[in-house]
């Protein structure tokens, strides 16, 4: 009704061109800063109304809906929308591991103007991750990569020049600092905290251990099962050795926030986590404010540092009533200007390379983003595209095998041998081989 009144008013008012009213529903993250930023970002698009898309003028309203906080729950919700072929949500934030699984339900963005040029500015690895059978099913919104957080004050106190560059160095520093701090009276102090629970996060951590030892990426991008090799075994064996020595026993139940809890209370020398943990660590009330730094993760023998690729993309629902308009909104939300703001206001890592050299960013609190550009550029992707639509199961049998080693129920050699057999069964078309 309202729409008709509006149209009638336009005609009566003698407007030259009738604009079409469209409402785009966007489902994204649920934490408060993310929601505030989304609302502001959407408002900037609405302020620029009307938009001419494919020759039609649109007056666009963006309605932001906060999705479930857990990515697993968000995925189940999306899958339920897709199963029902529902047009309820037009634009959706999708996790970096989903494009392969969800491609059948997402619009190929290449069919709309501007995307070919737009993606050229983004990191190629992330664009490749969003490309399924030559179709661009998502445009990068922000990225994530595993980082090493270190206590600069403690490193100095114990006579180290800087953060470790190899796992051996990390182990040595962690042990020394842990022993020293405990003798100093802090019984709750640990050397190194990370994510060891049996969930997707462990797949990320373990992929970093394996890749940094030159042990490959579980399954290669061209479909070769490479996980059962000496370097991977050594990497996971090493991590199992941390449990109970430089890492708490309970680390095998840790998620991101558990690790951050220990770290931010000042009870750990090192932490592996995503960039998000930086801002809360520098909070006014944080005991470690100004006492820590961020570095690339260490390398293992015969390998180079590796960070697992994370991050979120914007995708357009294939069952949307207005895919072209939703795609145009996605283009705005992922633009250079929006990524600069996003980096400064909510410390999400930009996916456009040039943003890292933007003067505005370099003068902000997150200027360190620029120093770590190589880390983000060379982030290792999980084998989600090649294993789609069975990435979920692939990841689960991987993190279950690793978790069995961490909790001492299996030795790494046996666990990876069994894992290889399970992966062969899950992916009968894949070959078995060694990395590279």
């Amino acid at each position, binding site marked *: 009704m309202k729409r008709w009144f509006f149209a009638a008013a336009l005609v009566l008012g003698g407007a030259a061109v009738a604009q079409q009213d469209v409402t785009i529903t966007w489902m994204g993250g649920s934490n408060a800063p993310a929601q505030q930023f989304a609302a502001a970002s959407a408002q900037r698009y609405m302020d620029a109304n009307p938009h001419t898309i494919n020759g039609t003028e649109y007056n666009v309203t963006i309605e932001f809906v906060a999705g479930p906080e857990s990515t697993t729950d968000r995925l189940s919700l999306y899958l339920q929308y897709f199963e029902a072929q529902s047009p309820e949500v037009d634009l959706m934030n999708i996790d970096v591991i989903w494009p392969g699984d969800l491609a059948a339900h997402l619009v190929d963005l290449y069919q709309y103007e501007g995307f070919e040029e737009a993606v050229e500015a983004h990191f190629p690895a992330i664009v490749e991750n969003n490309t399924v059978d030559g179709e661009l099913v998502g445009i990068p919104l922000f990225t994530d990569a595993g980082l090493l957080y270190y206590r600069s004050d403690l490193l100095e106190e114990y006579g180290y020049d800087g953060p470790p560059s190899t796992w051996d160095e990390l182990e040595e520093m962690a042990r020394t600092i842990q022993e020293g701090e405990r003798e100093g009276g802090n019984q709750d102090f640990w050397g190194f905290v990370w994510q060891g629970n049996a969930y997707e996060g462990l797949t990320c951590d373990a992929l970093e251990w394996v890749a940094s030892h030159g042990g490959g990426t579980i399954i290669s991008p061209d479909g070769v099962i490479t996980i059962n090799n000496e370097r991977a075994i050594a990497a996971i064996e090493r991590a199992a050795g941390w449990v109970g020595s430089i890492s708490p026993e309970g680390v095998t139940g840790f998620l991101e926030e558990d690790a951050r809890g220990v770290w931010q*209370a000042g009870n750990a020398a090192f932490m592996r986590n995503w960039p998000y943990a930086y801002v809360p660590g520098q909070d006014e009330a944080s005991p470690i404010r100004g006492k820590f730094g961020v570095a690339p993760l260490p390398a293992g023998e015969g390998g180079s540092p590796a960070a697992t690729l994370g991050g979120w993309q914007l995708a357009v629902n294939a069952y949307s009533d207005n895919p072209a308009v939703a795609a145009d909104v996605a283009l705005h939300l992922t633009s250079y200007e929006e990524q600069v703001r996003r980096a400064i206001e909510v410390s999400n890592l930009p996916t456009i390379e040039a943003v890292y050299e933007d003067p505005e960013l370099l003068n902000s609190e997150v200027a360190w983003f620029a120093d770590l550009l190589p880390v983000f550029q060379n982030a290792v992707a999980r084998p989600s595209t090649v294993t789609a*639509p069975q990435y*979920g*199961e692939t990841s689960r049998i991987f993190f279950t095998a690793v*978790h069995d080693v961490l909790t001492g129920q299996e030795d790494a050699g046996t666990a990876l041998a069994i894992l290889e057999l399970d992966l062969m069964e899950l992916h009968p078309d894949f070959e078995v081989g060694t990395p590279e």
Partner: protein
Amino acid sequence: MAQSRIGMAPASRGARKGLRLAAREERMAWLLLLPSVLLLLTVALFPLGRVFYSSFTDARFAAAGSQEVNFVGMRNYRELLSFTLRELPYQVDADGVRRYDHPRLFLRRLDTSMSYDEVVTFDLFGTRYVLGAVRPEFVRSVIDTVIFTVVTVSLETILGMIVALALAAKFFGRNAMRTAMLVPWAIITVVSARIWEWMFRSNRSGFFNSLLDRLGWGDGNTGFLTEPALQLPSIIAIDVWKTTPFMALLLLAGLSVIPKELYEAAEVDGASPIRRFFTITLPLVSPTLAVALVFRTLDALRVFDLFQVVFGERRFSMASFAQYTLVANRDVGLSSAASVVIFLIIFIFAIIYIRALKVDSGD
């Protein structure tokens, strides 16, 4: 004779008329019930039938018509319910010690059409056996759920009875106590599960670890929710905390209808409180108790939210296994087959239970 015939006639006419009325009323009743029956068929039997049907297919969740659905017969059921019991081979080494094959590697090397994984390995009469299943997670989820159900319902019944007896007595502030008692039950499971998850944290920031540490037990790093042996006891504790109030409430209702005179008479006769409990309270509260038991048992067998929040994909209940298989694994066929098996398990449980407790005997 004639008189009696005359006397009979109106009666039988009346009976016929009554019959016709009854038939009419029955028809009317059916007509009135028809909408409900149709509704029931559409909302209950239709989905159930669909689940049953899809359990024989290889359908995938949210497949967008990109994949055709094939009829696979009993394959999903075979996958769920295939077991193998094997003697574990060994070599005797130089010291005469038996070196057993690794059970999981041994099972995978078997030359069978199915690929088995270890459920349990055990020794019997000097021989080591391994029980394998194609989906050991499912078998474990069934075992875990049954243990969870038996233990939680027993504890909740005993504790619920104690609480109910305490609250049945007259004392100052009884109403306030009755209200306060219901708080754990009133909290949404997802919320209470998360609260307990925090209390069970694996370091001294968790309530239990800090408590144990103060008492000098443990090293303050006990992984209540990560150590396999502690996972079930922990989740049972959460459920008992949450559901005992509900049990107590039901039993309190049962207790309040027992006539006070019985207790007075028994007291006059010199029966001890324990005697009074077993001869008066228990028999008279037993119908309520039976209903409460059936209610709680069937509820516990279907447990989903608690396992989902606390364990996620680390350990499954029957229901969370079905959900995982459907959504994360996107395997509609296998998930449907699991749901049918779970349905049958609960159904059989219910029948045995209701018979045993004589809930449906009518008196």
